[in-house]
């Protein structure tokens, strides 16, 4: 469904992604793990067109998308939940969700559809319905994260890009969010590319994973395999530390 081939992305002189190649199949959850500055967020921003690649190809359903602006990419069915949530603080929950459907307002039927999708988001996150007219900026971090995901879903994405949904949240809230992601895949067949610091939770949910270090993919494989990989365990799961440095 999505294929990145030899992607290079730079911020000025900083070469953030070096020949990154990865792929996602329909209905998969794939996770990107790696330390701060490894390039995880840059990969998402490159796919969504916010920081375009300097070279390489991105194919979405066999169509090249690497040089399209973000609005065209959203229209094709790729929706991003940006890092740090970035809900629109001065807008109400409902207005935030409607912003997610920004490109879908074309006809009367579309409006009815949007309304139905909003109800679906509320079914997914009942907490949001209770707060539908509250300003997003006055909600807790967990609620804002739910809103950010709900907002991205309002675009009816085929592919959802999630940037660290667990950042700064209580474990219980993280659990709920991961439960919803699992439900999304089961019920709607949504394909998800998940960037996470919480490697354990991410690998548990995902089918496959890629491990990044300083802008390069250093390891890839099925999530279960990665979870057993000694290097991954040491660096990202905090296990078997002793065995490694006693080796």
């Amino acid at each position: 469904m999505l294929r990145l081939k030899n992607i290079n992305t730079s911020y000025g002189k900083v070469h953030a992604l070096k020949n990154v190649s990865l792929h996602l199949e329909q209905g998969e959850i794939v996770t990107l793990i790696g330390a701060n500055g490894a390039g995880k967020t840059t990969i998402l921003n490159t796919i969504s067109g916010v920081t375009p690649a300097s070279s390489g190809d991105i194919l979405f359903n066999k169509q090249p998308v690497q040089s399209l602006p973000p609005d065209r990419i959203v229209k094709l069915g790729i929706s991003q939940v940006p890092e740090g949530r970035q809900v629109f603080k001065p807008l109400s929950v409902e207005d935030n969700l409607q912003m997610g459907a920004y490109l879908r307002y074309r006809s009367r039927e579309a409006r009815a559809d949007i309304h139905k999708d909003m109800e679906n988001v509320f079914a997914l996150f009942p907490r949001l319905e209770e707060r539908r007219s509250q300003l997003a900026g006055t909600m807790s971090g967990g609620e804002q994260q739910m809103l950010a995901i709900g907002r991205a879903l309002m675009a009816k994405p085929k592919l959802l890009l999630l940037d660290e949904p667990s950042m700064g949240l209580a474990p219980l809230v993280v659990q709920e969010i991961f439960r919803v992601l699992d439900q999304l895949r089961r019920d709607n067949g949504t394909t998800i590319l998940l960037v996470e610091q919480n490697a354990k939770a991410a690998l548990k949910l995902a089918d496959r994973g890629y491990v990044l270090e300083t802008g390069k993919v250093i390891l890839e494989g099925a999530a279960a395999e990665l979870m057993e990989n000694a290097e991954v365990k040491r660096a990202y799961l905090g296990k078997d530390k002793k065995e490694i440095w006693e080796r």
Partner: protein
Amino acid sequence: MQRERIKFLIFAVLVFSAPLLFNGGYLMNVFVFVGIHTMLAIALNLLLGYAGQISLGHAGFFGLGAYASGILTATFGWNPWLAMPVSALAVAALAYLIGFPILKLKGHYLAMATLGMGIIIYIVFNETIDYTGGPSGLSGIPNMSLGGVSFDSDIKNYYLIWTCTLLTVLLSLNLADSRIGRALRAVHDSEVAARVMGVNARLLKVQIFALSAVICSLAGSLYAHTMTFLAPSSFGFNFSVELLTMVVIGGLGSIYGSFLGAALLTLLPEFLRAAHDYDIVIYGGLLMVMTIFMPGGLVRGIPALVRALTSGKRGGGNA
């Protein structure tokens, strides 16, 4: 939605019946300016309060509309009803042209760039003496007329200008409540997030800049045909700052707030005339007090003040 409509109707009725109170006096003339200033403040508020993009050069667009209408009618003998939309179109084209490069800038840099734009426009008014008359001004601009009725008195101008102002209010209220209004506020809060929602932020900012400029241009045309005389000093940097003050004092992101700000800043100097030499000191002091105690502007500050006063009368405590 229903409540918004009722609010607007009450506002319109008040505006149209207000002249009964003035009895054709001097205040009528002042309120003609309140109308023009309201249009201008709303225009700037759409840009600053909604989209979050500052402009310190809006007096320039106001002046361009005024001079374009003035020159086309006084010098070239055009009908004012034709000159007005033609001027507005020209200003829209110019705003697009300036908007694309300038709105890439943010914050202080955008303020600087728009400031420069305003100053350049002002200099053009002063120096193109063959067309604008330069510092000595442009005179002989005809009043507008409709079906044989010439808008040559304060009362007629009042109704002409306030009809246009009410249309601006209505358009802006609808815009603010639409999908575009939401997108503007979204761009204001986080441009990156708005872009990943599919908003073409760059184009949207230029479009709202152009719309804002067009409203200023139309207000300028009305001003030209009401005053029948133009001088560059009305369109300088000071006036851009005054517009900005109206928007902030009235309340950012509120259409009625722009009316309150425009009304206050237009009426205050008239009332302060009684204080003679001290008027500017009191004026400045009042503005400072208001920004400190009503940071949300008049539109949010007045209701809060009323609430505080009425709960105070009920016995000082609040429940």
